[in-house]
């Protein structure tokens, strides 16, 4: 790991501010249209539709008037210790040592779905059907992203093609490094309330590297050791409690803060 960093690699990640997120779903739409995500004949089948970035609605479970709701957008966590990568028998998914982005090679995937069984975040979708797009929508497909065929697994790639595009532009201008906001995924760009901050987690000059030091920041299922590179931020302890499973009395506020409900 250290070797990779010293070789000048980046560690792309994001912080999603749950207190800003309104659950509008623009990130999901931006993601789907950017990445040519196929539309199911029945999109109400949420256990089979293709969804790279799912927005979960959670509530504090209290009755009116104390009810509170929040939304948790869930892209691929781009784990630094990904449970999906070592299990793939055909090496169709890998973690890029330079960007630390977890890739998926659709033309190599055999569709065994072992990676889906390994991922506790349900960040991976299998193409149960042939890809289809409503009439007219096929004209808006992005030429930068290959549509996926039936029988393979797909997932969020942090819009890797955007990284390639930004890198090509930088190289053409004689630069080796990308500026902070030169490469951002479509969900980050689309969010109307700027709830998602994206950048190099290891670069002290990038905003994300400062944000992740905040006591309000946490990760999903941290105890499992997957080391996600998607962080969340909230000041509300009831939301934070939902980030991981905890035994009774185990959950503690970070840095001795008082719980804010």
């Amino acid at each position, binding site marked *: 790991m250290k070797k990779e960093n010293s070789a000048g690699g980046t560690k792309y990640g994001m912080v999603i501010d749950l207190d800003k997120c309104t659950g509008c779903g623009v990130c999901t739409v931006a993601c789907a249209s950017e990445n040519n995500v196929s539309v199911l004949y029945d999109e109400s089948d949420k*256990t*089979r539709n293709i969804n790279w970035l799912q927005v*979960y609605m*959670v509530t504090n479970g209290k009755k009116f008037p104390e009810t509170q709701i929040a939304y*948790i957008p869930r892209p691929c966590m781009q784990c630094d210790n990904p*449970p999906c990568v*070592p*299990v*793939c*028998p*055909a*090496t*169709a998914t890998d973690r890029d040592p330079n960007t630390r982005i977890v890739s998926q090679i659709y033309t*190599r*995937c*055999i*569709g*065994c*779905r*072992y990676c*889906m*069984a*390994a*991922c*506790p*975040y*349900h960040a*991976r*979708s*299998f*193409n*149960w*059907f*042939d890809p289809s797009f409503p009439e007219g929508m096929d004209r808006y497909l992005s030429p930068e992203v290959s549509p996926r*065929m*039936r*029988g*393979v*697994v797909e997932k969020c790639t942090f819009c890797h093609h955007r990284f390639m595009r930004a890198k090509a532009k930088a190289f053409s201008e004689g630069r080796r490094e990308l500026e902070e906001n030169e490469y951002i995924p479509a969900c980050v760009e689309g969010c109307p309330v700027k709830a998602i901050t994206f950048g190099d987690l290891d670069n002290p000059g990038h905003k994300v590297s400062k944000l992740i030091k905040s006591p309000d920041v946490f990760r*999903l*299922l941290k*105890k*499992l*050791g*997957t080391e996600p590179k998607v962080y969340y931020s909230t000041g509300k302890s009831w939301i934070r*409690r*939902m*980030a*991981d*499973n*905890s*035994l009774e009395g*185990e959950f503690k506020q970070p840095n001795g803060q008082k719980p804010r409900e």
Partner: protein
Amino acid sequence: MDLALIPNGVRRCSLKTFAPWMLLWLALIAWGLVSALLCLYKGLNQTNMNHYFAFGLWIVFDLSVIALGAGAFFTGFLTHVIGKAFIPSCVEDLKAVINAAVVIGFICYSSAIAMLGVDIGQPIRGWFIFWHANVHSMLTEVSFCITVYLSVLTIEYLPIIFSNRKLKEIPEIDIFGNNLHHIVALFAAAGAFLSFFHQGSLGGMYGVLFGRPFAFREGLFIWPWTFFLFILSAIAAGPSFTMLCIWITQKVTGKELVKRSSFALLAKISGWLLTTYIILKIIDTISWAYGVVPRAGLSFMDFYREPYGLWLFIAEIGIFGIIPAIILITPRFREKDGLLIIGALMNVTGIVLNRFVFTIQTLAIPVMPFDKFMTYFPTWQEWGIAVGALGYGILLFSLSYRYLPLFPQEVELNPIAVSGNTAKDF
């Protein structure tokens, strides 16, 4: 009509009786083929699997038949590899069942591989596992070993096929069959090596899932404890399954095909292995419940929700684990035919339950606290492929029994009387 093909010194039913029996199993195979074609042509949307249940009935069935087919390699290992040197008194009893065990093993492995061919989303790319092999994946190890082991089983099956009366008349085949028979110990050893690894890797497949606390286990070096438990449970269930199949054949044909002492030996082997397995499984469960589970912030009962409730745990380890272990290791119990068969059946059921639990329950339990607990029920196409595999198994076993000398003791145990033959022929 097919008298010339039937082995010397044994009696078989007429083709008129045999044909409808075959038709029944052919019908199941047809159901399986229709289902397979639908899945291959239209895709896996023909199943009830989804993003939550990435694995379903087929993986449960695959894991179960591979465990039950372990009778082939383990009996082969005992007979040909360690038999003469360490357990010479048992060799004769083992030789009486080895042919049947090999055929059962071949059926189990070939049907498992055929089902996997439908189960993967891109069957045409199946060979990518070998071409782009990821050596860190337990599934790669499983795929390599079961493919090679199926070839070993084919080589072990060939001498049995070549011992058919008509085939034996062809000198080349007879010599080839004899030659294969002489080196069978080599293949038995290779089969044992391959099987130990893939049975283990099937358990390892679940044990390495550190994102799924229900399945995750610590272990020794790269092997989680499930690796060793799956090997043990497979070799405990395999002989029981072989025994059950032979017992069913005896009941259907109305003949004694192997001596009682063979059953007693298989039951004893099964029983002691099952006892060892159940003790280790209980230790493993306790250490998991006090280690992996609380570290993931969960409690034991978080994993048992209806319909996959605590009853499943009690059934797997208690009813279908401890009870058959007691039945099979107690000489007084296993001497009684009824108890012996009940013990073997319970043993097999327990191991199938174990594979079910590791596949279905692992996927049913949400890991994210705000996620849903899911349930799953297979479609008729999924059942079709499983039932088709069953039909294929019974059909191939029936054909093997009818035309091949599957049971070396059959002639001795069922002498053909000059008149008044009392045995019901099949």
